[in-house]
């Protein structure tokens, strides 16, 4: 599954990037915290396909489907943060 499939209130560990993702952007995502081995939680998932909010450590980023669907993650687990809608 990809980061975009992650449900609100759940988290998962980044496994890899889809090969089509440009290497410079791969580096930037890594610097922001989206690197293999890091746990990412989805804190907000609005409807209508709007960008979702992801928490990495103490920062929150908004990613749209064009990039979140290029980050492959492992099994999702439930988290405490951002479970309300």
């Amino acid at each position, binding site marked *: 599954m990809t980061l975009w499939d992650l449900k609100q209130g759940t988290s998962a560990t980044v496994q890899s990037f889809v090969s089509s993702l440009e290497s*410079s*952007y*791969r*580096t*930037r*995502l*890594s*610097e*922001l*915290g989206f*690197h*293999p081995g890091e746990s990412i939680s989805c*804190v*907000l998932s*609005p*409807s*209508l*396909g*709007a*960008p979702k*909010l992801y*928490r990495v*450590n*103490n*920062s*929150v*980023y*908004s*990613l*749209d489907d*064009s*990039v979140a669907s*290029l980050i492959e993650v492992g099994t999702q687990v439930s988290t405490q*943060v*951002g479970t*309300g*809608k």
Partner: protein
Amino acid sequence: MSKTILIGSPNSGKSLLFNRLTGLNQKVANFPGITVNINAGKSLAHPSNEFLDFPGAYSLQTISGEEKVAVDAFYTALNDPETSTVVCVVDVTRLEKGLIFALQVINACAEHKKPLIIAANMVDVLEQHSMNMDIVKLEKALGVPVIAVSAKSGSGLEQLQDRAINHQQLPSAYSSDIIASDESLIHRQAQQLATDFGPKGDLLINAQTKLDEFFLHSWFGGLSFLVIMYLLFQSIFTWAAPVMDGVEGTLQLMAEFILPLLPAGVVSDFTADALFGGIGAFLVFVPQIFVLTLVVGMLEDSGYLARAAVICHKPLRLFGLTGKSFIPMLSSVACAIPGIYAARTVDSPRKRWLTYLAIPLMPCSARLPVYSLLIAAFIPATNMFGGLIGWQGLAMFGIYVFGIVCGLLVTALVSKTNKHMQSDLPFVLEMPPYRLPSWRPLLRNAWSRSKHFVTKAGKVIFLVTVVIWLLGYFPNQGADLGASWLGVMGQWIEPAFAPFGLDWKYGVAILTSFLAREVFVGTLGTLFGIEGGEENIISLAEHIQNSGLPVGAGFALLVFFSIALQCVSTLAVLRKETGSWRLPTQLFVSYSILAYAAAWLTFVIVQAVAG
């Protein structure tokens, strides 16, 4: 003169710190990437030292052209013998991210043999939430001085200024890996340092998430966005109105006091028509520019704008843009120039190019005097619910929406038909924490923007007003405006504006407004001043009402001014940013033609409906 470099991640509070240290008034916002030029200012405490504020960077390894410019400039500054110290600003509420960059800066400074200080900013936020971090141990671990500061409250700044000129010790490289990549050591080290010495707990992030759940909610988020935008435009009228009345009343009092003291004739006529009629008519609108800049600044400072960018991303994508285009577009509501500069934060070159197409159509504050004048002349000033809703405010909202819709339609059309710079970058936007706005810098920024507006536009308006007055007053000493030199010239251009119901006076005002839009008001004020003689100093809106301008022509003027690119400065800055005259020329010609055609169509439709 020694120089101190200020560098840090985007939105780490560098610009506010720079303003505090130098007393300058650089634009500050709670949005990643707002500093787009390198600003310099003398230290308040030690004037022999100069601070240089560099654009925020996530990394010393760049992925876009703008980042490369900033990072190259940083390395050039590191090689400059005058550079005495580097101050790396780190937001302690998001320590790990700041440290990833800081560790890279430590290595760069070690390599270039420059002393480094880490400014641990926003400690006031930690104090507010009874949180703390171990500065002493962090300093020991990094091997460079770490000074706890709050750019907002001013704490720790004295110590920082003193250390900036006295600190001589060179740092040692912290990590052998200068580039943070997937498995990088630097990333793990930053994470470990943040875990060991950073603030503990999720309090801040949880508070931010609660607010995000509301402001980005599928329904409440959209609704609150619309309400906030509506209040923004309504505030331009309701908050600024008393001050505008005050300015108008003062000008009238001054005219009543000064004019009788002057000998009748040319001097008195010039003072009444050109100074009070022309320039005075323009000064009345300055309070609105102040309020607009203040409210947009409040939204930026609160952190809401980044949320607005997220809300707008999906709809803007339909028009070929991105949520990041929202910030330059909203900045353009104050003025297109900062909007064009802010478009540098749109990292995708194609989306930035499309944003440039939309910016000149955003309803900038130079259009505001024209809109206000025409709305005051044609829309009744009826208010409801204590001034919360009023017809004039609604009309202003409508004309603003019209400009924005025009901008979006243009970008949609161009993005569908033009494949210029097709390769693209995905959407990743950092959500800054919510903050209560800092009033002092906001008020200072609004004041300096208004002052800039008066002094910059004022010069052009004064020159145009004098020329227009001379041409309109002679050769018959203002006895008959129609027979003046200007009147004769006006008859030649009248046919061009007759299709939308305007006489030659409006034609002359439109032509002069191609220098800058607000000149329209000054020119019209001067012309009506000459025509009206000295018997009455009445508001320009009343003059327009009395002139019998058809309602269709009023709407046609509104539409014309919403579309036409009448701003020499916008064209010059676009040329600078795009590197050629191609885009500014294309936009000027196409928006002029579009404005003319749309104004004519509006006149025909409104006149048909109005009967």
